[in-house]
Every structure is written in structure tokens, then in C-alpha cells.
């Protein structure tokens, strides 16, 4: 998407709960693209780093302020109940979208009055699919502490109504039915059989070597969630891990002459960052780790490469070439507070 913004193919953008200035790789490029947009609207519950680039910010809602369902990674559909009202001018995201549709004079399909109606449409739309929700109701979810898809209103083989299908806590059981195999086996292939896929090793796009001999890998710390829009505002969580540090092995630390907590500069083909070292033996000597939850000059994604896995399109956050050296001292941005602080 940002390449299309850069090429001028996308001129306007509306985003919901999106903070690519922190979460996408090579984010200095992302920031340039945000500024290139002719018009940008951000719907978000807090004024995050990306929303600060928006022409219009529409205050959205947290899940505590809305009702609906969430499907967990195990396929369990659970109910979210509203605990508090949206503060100030904030509104539920689905209401904002409907208002936009009405303002654009395209209200068809955007005339819901409550979240339950939206869920009813999901039941209808998913019927007959792999993830069939047709047998799931709000009441059933609450009664059974969650329902696993597929959960049928009608027997997918015969079309006969089923009064109270129990859902499917475990997929791919022998004899199970899905609309791709149509009874010939439990897996999502026409013959119902599973496949082992051979994955050939591909060299990373920006592999370690030459002038950038160290692997940079990025990830998370336990006290922060995603781009930190919520968790960088919560005192005890900030206190738990106040700033990103560069994890490195004692052998690498010795080679560049730094001790634990001293300042280190890491540099890739896209950017540099200066942070304190965290010297531990739990990382490979040829690899450094930086958590990505922070913004601006403390953002690890200034350094990462905007290359993707060809199938999943997941960026190569976990590997790019970098070099590290001892820094003279703290950078000027070390003392700068974030806007919400």
C-alpha cells in the first residue's frame, strides 16, 4: 500500500486502528508516504504516532466501549460486552463507518442499529463456508462460554435443520465434513487429504554479511502490546520496560567494547538507532535483538527491511544485516518525552 502511495497511485487514505509509523518495516519510508497523501483520515481510540499525520482524526472506540464477538486463534467465538460508554466525542467504529457511507450517499448495507444485527449478517454470510457461524447465537456463546466454528444451523451434507449444533472444538477429526472435501476426508483439499509442504530455504533479502555482518532481529517485550498505542500510556507497564534496549551476547559486547547498560549504535542500510546495551548470554553472539513497540528515533522499525514473505506477505522483521558500535553517550532524543507523557 505504501509503495502505491509513493508511486502516486493512492492519494487518499482512511485507516482504523493503524499505526504503521511504529509497526511497519523501514518506517522512515512510511512516514514520508503519510506526508505524501493528499488526504488522510485516521479512526483511532488514542492519538497515536500515525494519527498525528492525519488531516482529520475521528475518535473511535476500545472494545470495552462496544459490543460484539471476537474469534480467537483456536476458532472459539467469544462475546465482548460493553462496560463503559465512549468518552467525549468518541463513537463506536461501526457507527463511524455507517455515517461515512451515509455521507457518501451509499447507505446500502450500512443500516445496522446494533452490533447483534451485524453478527446476524455474519451468520448468514458464512453459512456453507469453512468457518460456518450459522448455528452460533449471542445466547449460545454466553451459555457455553464461547462456541467453536464451524457451528451449523443446517446439516451441511443434507440441508436438514440442526436444533443445537455443539460447534467444533477440534478440527480435522476423522469423518468430519468441510465444503472443500465434501465428505471425502477431513482436510481442506478436494480429496480430503492433508499435504506436507516442502519449504525451500531462501536467503533473506538483506542477509547479514560484508559491511553489515550482524543479524538484527526484532520482536516484543511482555509489557507492551503491538505499537504501544495503548500500553505506552499505562504507567506500570511503561515502568516495567521503560525504553528499548539492544540485547547482545557478551562476546559481541566485548568485541565492540561495551558493558551492560552502556550506549550502543546499531546501523542498517536504512537507519541507525542508539540505545542502551543489554548484555545476556541468551542470544546468539552474531545477532542483536531490539523490541519494536516504540516510536520516533527509538523505533526499531527504522532499521528493518520492507521485504515480504512471498506467500504470507509477512515482512522480514526477523532478519536483516546490521553493524553495531559503541556510542559516545546518550543521544539527544533519549531525554525527549513522548506526547502522551
Amino acid at each position: 500500500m505504501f509503495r502505491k502511495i509513493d508511486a502516486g497511485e493512492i492519494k487518499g487514505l482512511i485507516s482504523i486502528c493503524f499505526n504503521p509509523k511504529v509497526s511497519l518495516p523501514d518506517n522512515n519510508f512510511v512516514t514520508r508516504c503519510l506526508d505524501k497523501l493528499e488526504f488522510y483520515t485516521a479512526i483511532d481510540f488514542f492519538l497515536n504516532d500515525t494519527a498525528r499525520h492525519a488531516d482529520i482524526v475521528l475518535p473511535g472506540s476500545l472494545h470495552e466501549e462496544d459490543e460484539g464477538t471476537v474469534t480467537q486463534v483456536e476458532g472459539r467465538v467469544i462475546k465482548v460486552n460493553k462496560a463503559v460508554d465512549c468518552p467525549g466525542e468518541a463513537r463506536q467504529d461501526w457507527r463511524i463507518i455507517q455515517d461515512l457511507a451515509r455521507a457518501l450517499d451509499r447507505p446500502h448495507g450500512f443500516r445496522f442499529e446494533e452490533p447483534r444485527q451485524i453478527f446476524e449478517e455474519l451468520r448468514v454470510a458464512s453459512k456453507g463456508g469453512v468457518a460456518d457461524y450459522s448455528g452460533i447465537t449471542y445466547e449460545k456463546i454466553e451459555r457455553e462460554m464461547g462456541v467453536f466454528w464451524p457451528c451449523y444451523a443446517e446439516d451441511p451434507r443434507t440441508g436438514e435443520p440442526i436444533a443445537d449444533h455443539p460447534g467444533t472444538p477440534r478440527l480435522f477429526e476423522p469423518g468430519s465434513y468441510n465444503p472443500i472435501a465434501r465428505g471425502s476426508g477431513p482436510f481442506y483439499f478436494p480429496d480430503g487429504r492433508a499435504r506436507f509442504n516442502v519449504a525451500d530455504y531462501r536467503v533473506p533479502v538483506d542477509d547479514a554479511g560484508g559491511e553489515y555482518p550482524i543479524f538484527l532481529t526484532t520482536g516484543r517485550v511482555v509489557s507492551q502490546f503491538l505499537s504501544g498505542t495503548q500500553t505506552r500510556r499505562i504507567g506500570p507497564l511503561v515502568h516495567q520496560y521503560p525504553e528499548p534496549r539492544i540485547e547482545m551476547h557478551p562476546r559481541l559486547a566485548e568485541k565492540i567494547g561495551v558493558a551492560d547498560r552502556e550506549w550502543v549504535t546499531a546501523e542498517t542500510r536504512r537507519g541507525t538507532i542508539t540505545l542502551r546495551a543489554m548484555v545476556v548470554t541468551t542470544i546468539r553472539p552474531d545477532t542483536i535483538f531490539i523490541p519494536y513497540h516504540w516510536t520516533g528515533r527509538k523505533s526499531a522499525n527504522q532499521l528493518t527491511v520492507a521485504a515480504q514473505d512471498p506467500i504470507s506477505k509477512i515482512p522480514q522483521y526477523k532478519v536483516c544485516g546490521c553493524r553495531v558500535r559503541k556510542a559516545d553517550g546518550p543521544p539527544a532524543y533519549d531525554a525527549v518525552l513522548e506526547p502522551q507523557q
Partner: protein
Amino acid sequence: MKPDHLNFYIDPSRCIGCQACVQACSECDTHRGESMIHLEYVDRAASVQTVPVVCMHCDQPTCAEVCPADAIKRTEDGVVQSARKPRCIACGNCVMACPFGVPEVYEDRKLMMKCDMCYDRTSIGKKPMCATVCPSQALFYGTAEEIERLRPQSIPTNQFQFGNQVITTRVLVMAPRGPVGITPSVRVTASLDSGLASPDPFDEVEL
């Protein structure tokens, strides 16, 4: 009154360092903003192993014995309470004396505060907050039968020796069954020894 059949079990080997207990504890209304549980790395430079430390609730609490103001009380159901605010003089004797390193003096309010096993909850039969959020049951609150069934390889112990002092506590710590046991945990100790002597796993990595 804390029900007698419910016990608090700590199993440090199950701790994943997620800090959920710390956050849950700090949200409590009786000491809002402060966590009474200490979650420590054993040695972060060498390992990611963490240990959750709650008050062990000693049968003869050293903290109370050394308190010159008699500010630390043990209830008849065996729970050692946080310092009584009108009595505590923030001298820190308890901080120095506790063999488990539990009490902490808050200088800004001149008061010692520590884990009271969520007495507001446990005295009415509820679990301590930390045990309700711990995802790995490193902090477990339940019956002896439950823990026996859940952890057949481990044995709860509540006797600790510090120099010449032997301390018995209400809180129990899960330990691998001893060398006389017939369970495979005997070898856990053996592999730990050899693990310490083993070469650097990254020895082959060139730099």
C-alpha cells in the same frame, strides 16, 4: 477467616516471567499502584528464569519479632498482615530481618507494606489476585489434593533453613522430589549439574 483446606503453592520452575501477577497486584484497591509481589530474574545475564516472591507467611514471623513498634500482626488463621499504619515507624528492621526479602519500606509515606495474601479475598474463601491471573500456575491456590494431582513430580515444602534458623511457613514451595524418590525428577538434578558444566551453546557461532 481463611479456609484451612486452601493453601498457597509457589512453583518457581513454572514461572514464565510474564508479570501478570505484578500488574494484577498493583491494581488492588488496598495498595493501588504498588505491587506487593516481587518478580525477580535469578540472573538475567545468564538465563531468562524468573522467580515470583510473595510473603511466605511464617508461623513465627521474623519481621514481627524484630518490629519495635509491634506493627506487624499475624492473624489466627496464619496470615501475616502488612504493617499497621498508626504503629509503623518505617525503621526498616523488618526489611533487614526477613529471610525471604519480602517487606519494603515506602519512604514517601513512612510505611512498610507487604503481601498479605490478599486477606480481603482469602478471608472470604477467594483466591489471591496473583494466583487468579497466573497463566502457568507458578502461583497456585487450592487444596493439597489438587496440587498432588497436578504436580506428581514435585513435593510441597514449607520448611526452610537459614543458618541456624529453621522457618516454617503457611505458603508452600514446590520442589522436585528428592533423590530417594522413584520419579524421574531425580535426574532433573543430575541434568542440571551437567547443564552447568556444558559448553557454551553458541561456541560454534563465528563472530
